[in-house]
């Protein structure tokens, strides 16, 4: 790695840290705008007095100036003390981590579906540029882009569960059934829903990138040199178009998380999204803020990772 690269990584890291700081300020402000005082959970406790309440407020640091409260909160975020849930006093970070697996599994399954379909569709459109199949794939892409996730989920439940009885209507497992097949049957519909609505993220970029490569002389030259079309598609087109897709993966995560929230709600899938919505309903702001911070950190990390991978994988960027 050359010194240019180290500089690049440092600059990237610095910018991301700055962003994270801004994100935390935004989060802290939001938390304070929220109706409902952190003390409200104690006011109704039996035998509560104003003095006792003031004591608790002091203990929680609420009598301090706002900037000190922020620093304290920030320190907690950095040291892993993300506060406690209003609902059951459980540590926020622990609650989030316990809901993480379900979302990750759903997200990976959806990613596999949307990536495969999206890359395929984009490639097809580029190879048949200006012809019927190009129009078809781009209209399909627009339709998928326009589908409300919850509605697609409802339609799938109606068709595949209510009518055809192929898949269960929701949840991770049926009572008494712990088998892998049972789990996969529960995963199928939510993954398909989330996967399909995020197909356009990939297909549109793929269509653009592959189209750009097909316009280059190198494809014609490769054919003139007698390379097989299969080799040209895989080695030149796919490779060349997938490389710039790596940073797209970083953009993709926020889309996926937003989609997961709605999908998990429709299918009663116990992931981060459901946790967020439940916490919002109970006005459990520490958890709400925790999830927001957590996803922001995840987004920043993943986009940084994607940029680094792109930098390492593209020989043109490797100085």
């Amino acid at each position, binding site marked *: 790695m050359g010194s240019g690269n180290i500089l690049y990584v440092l600059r990237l890291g610095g910018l991301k840290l700055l962003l994270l700081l801004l994100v935390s300020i935004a989060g802290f402000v939001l938390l304070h705008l929220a109706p409902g005082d952190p003390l409200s959970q104690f006011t109704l406790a039996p035998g509560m007095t104003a003095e006792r309440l003031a004591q608790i407020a002091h203990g929680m640091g609420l009598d301090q100036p706002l900037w000190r409260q922020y620093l304290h909160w920030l320190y907690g975020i950095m040291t892993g003390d993300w506060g406690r849930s209003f609902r059951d006093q459980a540590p926020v970070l622990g609650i989030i981590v316990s809901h993480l697996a379900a979302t990750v599994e759903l997200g990976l399954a959806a990613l596999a579906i949307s990536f495969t379909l999206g890359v395929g569709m984009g490639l097809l459109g580029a190879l048949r540029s200006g012809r019927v199949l190009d129009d078809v794939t781009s209209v399909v892409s*627009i339709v998928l882009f326009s589908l409300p996730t919850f509605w697609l989920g409802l339609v799938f439940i109606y068709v595949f569960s209510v009518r055809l009885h192929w898949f269960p209507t929701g949840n991770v497992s049926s009572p008494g059934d712990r088998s892998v097949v049972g789990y996969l049957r529960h995963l199928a519909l939510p993954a398909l829903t989330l996967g399909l609505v995020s197909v356009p993220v990939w297909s549109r970029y793929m269509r653009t990138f592959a189209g750009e490569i097909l316009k280059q002389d190198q494809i014609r030259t490769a054919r003139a040199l007698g390379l097989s079309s299969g080799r040209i598609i895989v080695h030149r087109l796919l490779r060349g178009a997938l490389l710039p897709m790596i940073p797209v993966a970083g953009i993709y995560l926020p889309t996926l998380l937003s989609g997961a929230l709605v999908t998990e709600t429709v299918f009663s899938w116990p992931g981060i999204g459901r946790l967020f919505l439940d916490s*919002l309903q109970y006005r459990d702001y520490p958890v709400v803020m925790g999830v927001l911070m957590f996803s922001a950190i995840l987004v920043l990390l993943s986009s940084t990772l994607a940029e680094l991978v792109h930098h390492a994988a593209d020989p043109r960027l490797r100085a």
Partner: protein
Amino acid sequence: MTMRLPSVLRRLLSHPRGMVPAFYVPAIIVLCAIGPWLLPFGELHVDLYHRFLPPLGDGHLLGTDEIGRDVLSRVLMGGRVSLLVGVVSTAISTLIGTTVGIVAGYHAGLSRFLITTVIDTVLCFPVVFLLLTLAAVLHPGIGTIIGIITLVSWMEVARVAQAQTRIVRQQDYVTAVVAMGAGDAQVLFREILPNILPAIIVSATLNIARAILLESYVSYLGYGIQPPDASWGNLLNNAQEYLESDPWLAIIPGAVIVLTVVMFNLLGDALRDAIDPARRGS
């Protein structure tokens, strides 16, 4: 890229991908605007003797819901709200986004850095999470919805405006105008704005589609337009309960959302191609 209206319209209407949405969009707006007055049932008219009527049942074209309200009336009334949210939030965010984008694109330096950093910060949050938090923190209602959708939408316009402004700013003739002593205002209004307008219009059209979709998410999840008022999103709010027995309650309003959002997206794409035909296919 300059825009000449007649030729743009001709190109837009020359292809079904432009023609269909160019007719659908005004049609759905007019339908939602005057439709509810023409229908015999008010959208809030409860009729417990005629609950869960299927489409075409007993004078109700799209059937009735769980308390016997006419679904067609509710879809059209919901359309008023959803389209209003889409159009108004887009109008405001286009105004903000264009202004911010031009400022950031016109002069390199601190303002550009600050603006891009703010945009990047907000984009760190998944948009639906952010919308729901804001909706929960603020009082629900149509103004709130418009406000928060604007808050997450202006950035897309700002990006487009910024990129376009930078391109125009670097054109030789703009440099020449500046060199001849034109003031910033003159350059902005005479050179920059007319040239970035086509891209802004396309971006705004796509933005309406997105805003309608976002409203439907927030309302579906219960943080948007509150019942008994209708919006396309909150019509689906209870529909999952009745999915087994009365699927049309979910399918019909959803299909209307999909159709409308598809049409706005198609219109945006077709406008882009019509304004800049050379771009077609790329």
